[in-house]
C-alpha cells in the first residue's frame, strides 16, 4: 500500500507558516490511513447477512470506529487550524507595506 501526503500548499503570504515536522506529518498520515482502513472495513464492502453483523460484533465495534475516526479527524483539523493561526499571526496589518 502506498500512502502519501500529496500536497498542502499555503496561499501567497508575506511569510510562510512554519512547516510541520516530518514526524508530525507522518503521524497525521498514520491517523488518516487508520481512519480510512476502519471506515472501509466496517462501513463498506458487501452486506450479505444484514443485521447479523450487529449481533456478532456488538456495540464495542461502534465505539471503536467512532473513537478512531474522531481521533484522526481531530488531528487533521487541528493541524489545519494551526496553519491558519500561524498565517494570521504572520500576516501584515491591513494598509501596511
Amino acid at each position: 500500500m502506498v500512502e502519501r501526503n500529496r500536497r498542502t500548499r499555503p496561499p501567497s503570504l508575506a511569510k510562510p507558516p512554519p512547516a510541520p515536522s516530518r514526524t508530525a506529518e507522518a503521524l497525521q498520515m498514520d491517523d488518516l490511513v487508520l481512519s480510512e482502513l476502519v471506515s472501509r472495513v466496517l462501513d463498506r464492502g458487501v452486506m450479505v447477512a444484514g443485521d447479523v453483523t450487529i449481533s456478532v460484533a456488538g456495540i464495542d465495534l461502534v465505539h471503536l470506529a467512532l473513537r478512531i475516526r474522531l481521533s484522526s479527524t481531530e488531528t487533521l483539523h487541528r493541524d489545519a487550524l494551526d496553519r491558519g493561526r500561524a498565517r494570521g499571526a504572520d500576516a501584515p496589518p491591513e494598509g501596511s507595506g
Partner: protein
Amino acid sequence: VSGIYLYCFTPPGTVPGADLAGVCAGLVTHLALPWLTVWLEETDDVPRADLETIRRHDAVVRAAWAATPACLPVRFGQWFAEAGALEKTLTERRMELERALTTVADAGEHGIRITETDPTTEAEAERARPSTGRAYLEWLQARMRRDDARARRVAALGEELEASLGPAIRAQRLDVLPAGQGLASVAHLVPIERAEAYAEGIRAFGARHPELGLLETGPWPPYSFAP
C-alpha cells in the same frame, strides 16, 4: 462447525493459500460455487471487536485481491450459521455480484480526503455558539446555510474531479464530511493500467485548487464499490 465468517468473493478458480490465518485463529478456507468463490473461515468463535481483528480481516481481503484480478470485499462481521443458508443468499444475488465483480476487475480503490488549507472561518463560526434565545436560532440557521453551501461545493468539486479524470477512473464515490472534519472523502475505482494517468489527473486538480489539501491513500481493495 457452528458458523461461517466471510471475507470476500472472487471469480471461480482462485482459492486461499493453505496457511492464511483468519480473524478467529483458524485458517481461511473457501466455498466453491460454479460461478463464485467465497473466502471464509469456519469457526466456533465470534471475532473480537478490536483494531487487530479489523487489520486481520483486511489482510485476508488483500491476500485475495493480490491473487485474483477481481475481488469483492465483504463488510466486517458477516456471519452465517451454515453453508446452505449462505449459498441460498448468494444465489439470490448472483446477477448483482457477477456484475460487481466485472466492474472491479483489474482495478484498485484510491482514497482522497479533501481538506481546506484554511478552515479557520468555519471553525470560529462553530465555536461562536450562543447559549440561548434568538441568537441561538439565528446561529442554527447560519449553520444550516453553511452545511448546504458545503454540500453544493463538494458536489461541484466531485463533478469537476470526475470530468477531469475521465477514463482514468471507472467509478467515483463522494461523501461529504461533517463540519470540522474536512470537506469530503472521495473514493475512485482506478484501472491498474490507468494508475499513472490518475496520479497526473489528481496533480492537475490540486494545482487548480490551491485552497484545498488533498490527502491520498491507497490503493485499497475495492471496498467502496462493493454492492
